């Protein structure tokens, strides 16, 4: 997996959670006031990513001390979530 694959996976999962009504970009915010995802949708995205990770033979851990931090969270943007997803896939190797 590379960053482009990871981004593609994350975007697909987010678009699916939004019923494909919105086109998702790399810099889309996932938490905070401007996010299109409420906390319920965010959990759904995490669960879906956990399933994809499962299919790819690694565990996706979405718990983090920084989870809701606007400056350091993996959920800041699509890009940061894709980077974390990629990191976790690589650290499982």
């Amino acid at each position, binding site marked *: 997996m590379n960053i482009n694959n990871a981004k593609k996976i994350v975007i697909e999962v987010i678009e699916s959670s939004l019923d494909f009504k919105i086109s998702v970009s790399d810099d889309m915010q996932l938490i905070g006031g401007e996010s299109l995802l409420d*906390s*319920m949708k965010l*959990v*759904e995205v*995490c*669960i879906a990513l*956990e399933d994809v990770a499962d299919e790819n033979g690694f*565990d996706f851990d979405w*718990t983090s001390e920084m989870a809701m931090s606007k400056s350091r969270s993996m959920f800041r943007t699509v890009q940061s979530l894709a980077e974390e997803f990629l990191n976790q896939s690589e650290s499982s190797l």
Partner: protein
Amino acid sequence: MIIVTGASRGLGQAICHRLIEKGERIIGLARSVEELEFEGIICDVSDYQSVKKAARSVRKMGEKVDAIINTAGVASMNLAVTTNELTVQKLIQTNLVGTIYCCQLFAPILLRQKSGSFINFSTIAVALALKGESVYTASKAGVEAFSRSFAREMADFNVRVNCIAPGPIQTDLLRGITDTQIKKITSQQVIPKQFQKEDVCDLVEILLDQKASSLSGQILNIGGV
């Protein structure tokens, strides 16, 4: 399928037997599963990785999970000033942190299904502020507070969270407590008698029933306060 922590003895064991009698498939979680008379998974609730591993095993079974019942716990009847450091840590780590670990790590299974319920265990000693149980009640008060907030976090996913708070039920946890002491506690309940494991099992059955689908975020004190 129903998951029960602390399944090897006391209330956990009684609940497992009751639910098996009712035809449920039970997976008991305990530190040792050799003596379980039903399916079990080794799990130390105070150990994050151990709970994570157990949750993964359950998820891989691919079966619908109707409830997670967190009965695992330890007790210590002692004044705060005479409770040693290790006991303080053990009470908080097992009763409070263990319950939190089990809820957070098993939650994705129920969230995925958008159904199911958690039943956590507190004690009537919290509401009665019983003397000589301060550290124990602190750990269980944490369970109550956690359960109420957690219930709100789970509600959007059609997952319920409730907490049963029994009085002095005859289990290993009551070792060393005299009948007089038990009477002193039960006399403070609305219904001033000692309830039994069967009464707790009845309440568990009620909470699991579809007819209890309007109940979430509740602390149910057995005997009343």
